[in-house]
């Protein structure tokens, strides 16, 4: 998977036609073969753009920063990224006419060690679902058969006490830097509820219980919306398996409410913002 040339051409043309103010893509990080996001404002810098299987970070995140808000932006999105873009559009965070989307039919990206990322192995939506221009060959992948995450399945099957002990370690190792939420494209709130004065509890301290509280709240706010791009895990300095929480919610939602995956359908806000009379009721006395 290498679309470096095409993306450079597209960006040059967009600048030449005056269609965009900034192009968000990837460049080499300058010390190994991994890549970092780059915001190109000067057409001269277009040659820095690359796109390969090392283009990992979900660039939709940059649509919530000062650099891109209310500007015309060119943007590269993979399958998962495009779903978060879809949600950003549905939730009125960006205007469609302000962004030029270069969609990728993604073949999966690799981590620092060169292994295919786990979310790419399990990927159900590899092709960009929203784009002005689509690069690559559409896979025509099946988005309706749910692929259960192996870690979630494994954890669900171990005894409760062991699971409790496992997650206690997870929350214990959280340092509450909040990098997970800042790197998440869908955490765009003006001020996170966890940090608000009205929260009155666990709004400052950095204890295990506070970490539990913050991560639980965070994952519930992303339930039905998380697109599994793993920006959070990439940002986590403690390498916590944050995807477990999201995939757990996703599987519950998929199995019980027969909802589509987050962001696949335009104007679909996610499972918590609608209901069905047929939703499971047997867990309620």
């Amino acid at each position, binding site marked *: 998977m290498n679309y470096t040339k095409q993306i450079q051409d597209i960006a040059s043309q967009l600048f030449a036609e005056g269609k965009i103010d900034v192009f968000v893509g990837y460049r080499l990080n300058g010390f190994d073969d991994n890549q970092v996001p780059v915001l190109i404002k000067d057409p001269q810098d277009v040659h820095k753009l690359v796109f390969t299987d090392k283009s990992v970070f979900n660039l939709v995140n940059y649509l919530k920063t000062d650099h891109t808000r209310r500007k015309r932006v060119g943007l590269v999105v993979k399958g998962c990224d495009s779903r978060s873009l879809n949600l950003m559009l549905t939730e009125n965070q960006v205007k469609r006419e302000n962004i030029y989307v270069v969609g990728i039919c993604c073949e999966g990206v690799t981590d620092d060690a060169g292994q295919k990322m786990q979310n790419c192995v399990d990927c159900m939506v590899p092709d960009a679902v929203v784009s002005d221009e689509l690069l690559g060959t559409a896979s025509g992948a099946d988005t309706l058969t749910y692929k259960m995450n192996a870690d979630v399945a494994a954890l669900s099957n171990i005894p409760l006490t062991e699971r409790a002990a496992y997650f206690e370690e997870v929350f214990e190792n959280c340092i509450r830097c909040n990098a997970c939420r800042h790197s998440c494209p869908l955490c765009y709130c003006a001020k996170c*509820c966890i940090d608000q004065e*009205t929260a009155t509890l666990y709004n400052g301290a950095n204890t295990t219980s506070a970490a539990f509280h913050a991560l639980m709240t965070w994952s519930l*706010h992303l339930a039905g919306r998380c697109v599994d791009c793993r920006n959070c895990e990439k940002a986590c300095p403690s390498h916590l398996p944050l995807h477990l929480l999201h995939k757990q919610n996703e599987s519950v939602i998929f199995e019980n409410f027969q909802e589509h995956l987050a962001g696949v359908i335009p104007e679909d*806000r996610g499972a918590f913002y609608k209901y069905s009379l047929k939703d499971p009721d047997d867990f309620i006395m």
Partner: protein
Amino acid sequence: MARVGVFVCFCGANIADYVDVPQVVEEVKRIKEVKFATEYKYMCSDPGQGMIRDAIVQNKLTSIVVAACSPRMHEKTFRKALSDAGMNPYLLEVANIREHSSWVHQKDKKAATEKAMDLCRMAVAKSIANEQLHEISVPVTKRALVIGGGIAGIQAALDIADARIPVVLVERSPSIGGKMAQLDETFPTLDCAQCILTPKMVDVASHPYIELIPYSEVIELQGFVGNYKVRIKKKASYVNFKTCTGCGACWQKCPVKVPNEYNMGIDKRKAIYTPFPQAVPNKPVIDAEHCTMLTKGKCGICAKVCDKGSIDYTMQDEIIEREIGAVVVATGYDMWDPKPYEEYGVGRFKDIITSLEFERMVSANGPTNGVPIRPSDGKVPKNVVFIKCVGSRDEAKGIEYCSKICCMYTTKHTILLHHKVHDSHAYVFYMDIRAAGKGYEEFVKKAQVDTGTTYLRGRVSKIYKKGDKLMVRGEDAQLGQVVEVEADMVVLATAVSAPKDNPDLARLLGISYDKYGYLSEAHPKLRPVETAKAGIFLAGCTQAPKDIPETVSQASACAAKVCGLFAGDTMKKDPMVSTINNEYCSGCQNCVKVCPYGAIVTDDVPIGHGSKELRTVAKINEGVCQGCGSCVAICRSMAINLAGFTDPQIINEIVSI
């Protein structure tokens, strides 16, 4: 710094016997913010409220906690006391230590006391976060909707209209009148139902303030008290009521015969029909299900015989929209189907009939010209057995409740039988005779003497056929032996049951109903005509079984409530509505999606101080918001809060114990 006053009520012995009230007072005095705490025998009494007023002034209190009965009971009372002391009434919190502690933990005083302490702590913590709130004024549409044109709906409509308030009366069947129009005479005075009802029906039709929409159903209700919008489906009648004179040529010539609902299917009516001669409006409708012109395209006789050309086979259902301010629901009741009484041979023996069938037979305008006859052979019955409580008070077969009217109408039936068939003899199997009401007991006593009816206390266990007679085997509990009565006919006093469509209607209106399907009143004793949804009232049997005088009283009470609601041009509304913090709102508009009332719209505000650039945020329409809090819980930014149930208030409660 908050200064909270706590007032703990003994409620006579109701609380004090099971909760150590002085200990609760001592405990709440330990709370930092509590500056005053005391106890009293009846907080809700005038001296009790006086204590609250005095303490507010003397101790400069900033919020008040009353630990007493349920806030659903006396919250308003205590809010008033706060107002009287010059304090914002919404600075009150009620700790429910009676329904939630003293009454439910009567065997463990220590635990009940501890729980009461915790409930007080929670209320104190919540009250600290209470804010001053002010009632909201909303304009009122002064027009009422009455659903159902039985005696309840008629009475309510007339009373409201007489107060010069426009009324829209919606009736499902082609004519108003309801069940009462099917009755012959009424207990305990034995005056003719038609004679007292039909003048009222005519009044409805001619009243300048009543818009009668017959043969129609309510299909949608939107909005809120004072500002509802209703959609009514007017079923196609295929007859132009404007030109029809009601001459009757059409139904006389119509060849299609259909069982007559008005006469309980004892005789037939035509496919084009008026339900009964005194119908209002007295215009025929075509039964689309049975009319061969409409089903097969063959016939068309009625159109041919109509001089006025009023028949229109192409007529379509019509949707009528009205803006209204209040709703009276008067959908009446259904007769319970006695099918589960297999041991009586219901369905097998033709000569077992229900009370309403009997009522139609003895009615002067009934199918048998006022003479009861056996359906099997058309003979006039001599020995008639009346069985009471068929369905009612029978957990196994039917319904736990007492249908309230059967004792009285069965007594009436024995009299009517005696009048119509002089040599007849009536037997009544009964469980109890419930004759509570003005003149009721006297009526029953007199009937027993006059008619010579044999009253047998006991249940009937079996009915079987012997020749052309029915053998009724039952127990005479007073003699303690089994009795058998040879009967020509058996009349079942079947139970009153809720209209089967009530749950659907309740959902449509957004009100609640009980396990039987009766619509729920807001309070069984103190608010028996209101529903929990403001501006919707209940009249008649749709709320619970009742007789005509009670139904009429309740209908008039509804009218009084509606008139009270419409007394001013605006209406005061609870200030427990959602509010938006623009600074935190990210404009995702998820709240717009979950709001059941469409109370959230969007608004454009500057990005920052003095900025010309705009961003979109949510905005609450206070008049429409009903304060459910759906939007609050789904707002990830926590930009929405519900006054009276804010996040700080609830979280304070959680962390206070």
